[in-house]
């Protein structure tokens, strides 16, 4: 592994100070399940310093306050997958957290790391984009809150500055009765990296007419975003296989419009359509909230 200086922090203040002193020549260590792989990869330059925030206990846990759900960034995927708060208010985020890696990875990997690493396959991001989550970033210069929809520039690149650390993830919980789903396709049952995934939200009125829909594909677009072209097709309609298939086809069409035809298109085009259809059907079924891979 590359050599580096190691700075263990016991508070976010200390982490911000360390990042400021390192002037861009440092990496933040949370769960380490991505960073340690990177540091071992041949050709990776030394990070200079590792700022270890993993022992800041106050940065773990989820809570509900003033009508908002907040997740602290060092909460592990295992904790999120079992969180009663998430199971009640955003079940697809709990499902997505439980679909990451293996039990060992979920015991170490954190939601903050998943967001900040910004890999295209990051499973927690599609549900967070569907929820319109907001991210609080902190540095010695102060705090700012950004919308997750504007946070990602491209895979592995965000608008976070080198001295900024993620301190909170917040979202407004979905109203009661709104259903969510997360579906994921990987190459194997365990330890799968998403080849494609879909997070979906569907609200229906008492007549069964769809009043709101949100669709966010994962590992499909240059950056995560909702697909309003497919979402609007659903509004005012009743759930049906044909409707969901049409919305899936539209989502694939939008993906092609954004990415162009690539080597993987032949595979991704039909698969995304099917995953969207399945996610929407799960939202309108009694079978649960989806899963992966």
């Amino acid at each position: 592994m590359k050599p580096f200086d190691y700075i263990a922090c016991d508070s976010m203040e200390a982490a911000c100070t360390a990042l400021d002193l390192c002037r861009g020549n440092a990496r933040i260590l949370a769960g380490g399940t991505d960073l340690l792989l990177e540091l071992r990869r041949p050709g990776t330059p030394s990070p200079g310093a590792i700022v270890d925030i993993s022992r800041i206990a106050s940065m773990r846990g989820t809570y509900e306050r003033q009508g908002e759900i907040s997740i602290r960034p060092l909460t592990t995927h295992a904790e999120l997958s079992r969180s009663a708060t998430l199971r009640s208010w955003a079940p697809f985020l709990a499902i997505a957290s439980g679909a990451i890696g293996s039990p060992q990875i979920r015991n170490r990997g954190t939601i903050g790391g998943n967001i900040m690493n910004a890999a295209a396959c990051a499973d927690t991001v599609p549900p967070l984009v569907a929820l319109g989550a907001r991210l609080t970033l902190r540095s010695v210069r102060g705090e700012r809150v950004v919308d997750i929809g504007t946070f990602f520039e491209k895979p592995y690149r965000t608008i976070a500055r080198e001295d900024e650390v993620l301190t909170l993830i917040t979202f407004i919980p979905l109203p009661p009765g709104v259903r969510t789903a997360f579906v994921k396709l990987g190459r194997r049952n365990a330890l799968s990296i998403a080849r494609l995934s879909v997070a979906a939200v569907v609200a229906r009125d008492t007549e069964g007419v769809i009043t709101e829909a949100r669709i966010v594909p994962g590992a499909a677009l240059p950056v995560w975003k909702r697909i309003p072209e497919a979402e609007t097709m659903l509004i005012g309609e009743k759930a049906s296989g044909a409707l969901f298939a049409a919305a899936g086809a539209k989502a694939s069409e939008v993906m092609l419009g954004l990415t162009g035809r690539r080597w993987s298109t032949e595979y991704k085009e039909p698969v995304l359509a099917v995953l969207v259809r399945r996610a929407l059907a799960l939202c309108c079924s009694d079978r649960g909230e989806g899963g992966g891979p």
Partner: protein
Amino acid sequence: MKKISLHTTVNGRACELEIPPNQTLLDLLRDTLGLTGTKRGCEIGQCGACTVLLDGHAVNSCLVLAGQTEGRQITTVEGLAQGEKLTPLQEAFLDHDAVHCGFCTPGMLMSAKDLLKRNPSPTQQEIRAAISGNLCRCTGYLQIVEAVDDAAKRMRHPKK
């Protein structure tokens, strides 16, 4: 690269060490402490051969920096048995021939231990999910699942 001091507890024994900051927990256990029961497999968090318990939770020791274990409790496969007395989980692995070449066994035992602590009555599906981060290249999964299932029963109904 300046060494860092580390205070951690391994299998109930307090350790005070000076370590290079880029040492992984896996290297600390095997190379510094000589606890070679924890196996070095893929070193990318895929095979689970290096699984240990960190504060009771199964983790890939290849993906943890040793420095991150400051003040924490580590349990390796060597920490399971009490002297010569094996745990019901280890006994069940032997009785069910769940040990083939043996390379995956320490990791399997640690993942199973984490499961049985949280869930004393797991279903077959829950056992399979709990060991889904552990590869057995001999493909002896059936015996391993049976052993964990039997161990759970033995632990719920210990012989007098």
